[in-house]
């Protein structure tokens, strides 16, 4: 076991895969000479040279599309978005090309590409820079979407993403890059579609991912003090979604609260609510509740931003509501 930061775990995964497979390369804004806007790719230019760690101009539509084309003919690109907000410009490439090439070619062409970068809120960066983009992408068949909360999963999921023969979107988090965690020495890939129980409990299940897993854990610790036992389930992978683990947990606890950044209308939380009510209806003692970013563009003002983002106290309130309803 070693202790690594989240950004180091991501970097290690990319380096190991690039050493293993010469077709893997990294492309994005400031990934090379600047060592990455958030230092995820620090040292990689020095290690692999400018042919494989490629600084791209600000042209997201261009270099995302270039990645898809290169993937069609045998390379395995890792395309970094400085933040996922800027992928909006490349949305056409991801939606119309990456996700569609395989089916519309009748299965002839694969698109083994990774799109990655920090997602969701940072701190007071305003409405255009605070998007939780996973909800848009998880809707699209043909794409896989993962969102690790811990360094070990960041490494294992990134390795799995690079080896996967489909387009995989890795949702990182600026606010998690510096967190530390244990990473097994022999860690290989973490397979997609497997959630993990990061805290066992009996009276309610909180389903979360990415930074919200940490918020959920804080809420669970606080709730324990008032005698409420909460199970925290970290999804890790949003598409494919580990329905079985979610349903098994809810059948045990009888209550479910989903926590994520991003708006409540549609999205991952709505998807999980649908599956839980369909697959565990008879076990539920309360409606499935969601704690999300409030249904408005993210404001700049610090207090209003905090008000809009899902916080520990809102998660606690939601769990209490679910538990006391039937108490």
């Amino acid at each position, binding site marked *: 076991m070693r202790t690594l930061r989240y950004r180091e775990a991501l970097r290690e995964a990319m380096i190991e895969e690039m050493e293993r497979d010469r077709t893997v390369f990294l492309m994005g*804004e*400031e990934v090379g*000479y*600047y060592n990455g*806007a958030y230092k995820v790719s620090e040292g990689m230019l020095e290690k692999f040279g400018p042919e494989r760690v490629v*600084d791209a*101009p*600000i*042209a*997201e*539509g*261009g270099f995302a599309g270039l990645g898809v084309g290169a993937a069609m003919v045998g390379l395995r690109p890792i395309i970094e978005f400085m933040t996922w*907000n*800027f992928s*909006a*410009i490349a949305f056409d490439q991801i939606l119309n090309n990456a996700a569609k090439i395989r089916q519309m070619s009748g299965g002839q062409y694969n698109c083994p590409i990774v799109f990655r970068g920090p997602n969701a809120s*940072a*701190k*007071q*960066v*305003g*409405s*255009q*820079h605070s998007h939780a983009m996973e909800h848009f992408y998880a809707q699209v068949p043909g794409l896989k979407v993962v969102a690790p909360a811990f360094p070990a999963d960041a490494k294992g999921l990134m390795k799995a993403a690079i080896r996967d023969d489909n387009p995989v979107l890795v949702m990182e988090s600026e606010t998690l890059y510096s967190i530390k965690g244990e990473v097994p020495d022999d860690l290989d890939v973490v397979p997609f579609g497997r959630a993990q129980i990061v805290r066992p409990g009996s009276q309610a299940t909180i389903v979360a991912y990415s930074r919200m897993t940490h918020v959920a854990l804080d809420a669970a610790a606080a709730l324990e003090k008032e005698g409420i036992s909460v199970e925290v389930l970290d999804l890790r992978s949003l598409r494919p979604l580990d329905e079985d683990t979610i349903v098994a947990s809810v059948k045990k606890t009888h209550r479910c609260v989903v926590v994520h950044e991003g708006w409540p*209308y549609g999205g991952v939380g709505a998807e999980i609510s649908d599956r839980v009510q369909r697959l565990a209806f008879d076990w539920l003692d309360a409606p499935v509740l969601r704690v999300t970013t*409030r*249904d*408005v*563009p993210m*404001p*700049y*003002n*610090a*207090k*209003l931003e905090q*008000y*809009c983002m899902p916080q520990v106290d809102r998660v606690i309130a939601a769990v209490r509501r679910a538990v006391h309803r039937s108490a």
Partner: protein
Amino acid sequence: MLGRQTMDHEHLASLYRQMLLIRRLEEEAARAYAMGKIGGFLHLYIGQEAVGVGACATLTRDDYVVTTYRDHGIAIAKGMAPGAMMAELYGKATGCSGGLGGSMHMFDKPNNMLGGHGIIGGHIPLGVGAAFASKYNKDGRVTLCFFGDGAVSIQGFHEGVSLAALWKLPIVFICENNEYSMGTPLSRTLSQTDVSLKAVGYGIPHDRFFATDVLEVEQRIGQAVERARNESMPTLVEVRTYRFRGHSMSDPGKYRTAAELEEQKQKDPLIQARLKLELGWDAAKLAALEASVEAEVEAAVKFAEDSPEPDASVLEPTTYDGPFAS
């Protein structure tokens, strides 16, 4: 009657005053940021003041301006009250965007400031849209659309310029070429580093010059503005400039040498303007002008400090006009 020389100096003094005001406001913003009073990203305009001031000096209040996230200076040059700018940085309700936009999103409808925008290239078609409306309404207004050298690679730039050229819209595209997009020098983002030549492919006039002398900026942009106003012909202007600070507050700027920065500071357009005034204008007037700028900056900071924060009740009515749709 004032002699021509004196009139020129009066005019230069007014431009110098705006440049100094911007410089001092930005310095105070940096200080407030270090004290945690301003959050998020903060991209300073220090070093580039002559571009915004010289360009906006050619406009009337009715004309439109739109720019990137490096927007405080241009907002001031377009007439925004310093207090409204500083209060926005502080996230206060009295800020130009009610504290909801922050540093990157300075909007000022009474002054036809169509905003600072965070997504590279995204605002360029917006500027083209304002120019389209002016032609549609035959209102004689001109739009200045500012962007960085980094935006020249992105689709919004090409589509925007292409449409404006096709439909002969009254707009001036101003590329503020400060030689870097974040940590990347222009030579590593563009195959043709003469940005103005991009105009050739779209069949519109172009110009290219250094922004060392604010009067020259005014005169050269003025020609393009007249072309837009009188002939409804767009122009692409590349103004060569330099930012003295990092890309944003979190950028230590390790990609350029101290010598390079020092060389650029020697050409500081603010100092150049002041030197001219020292030579040809009244020393007492200059001192009074500078004192008045200090007072204005101090008042702006105090206004920002003393202003209230916005309340959560503003969120729904600023999301939709009319009932909230959920």
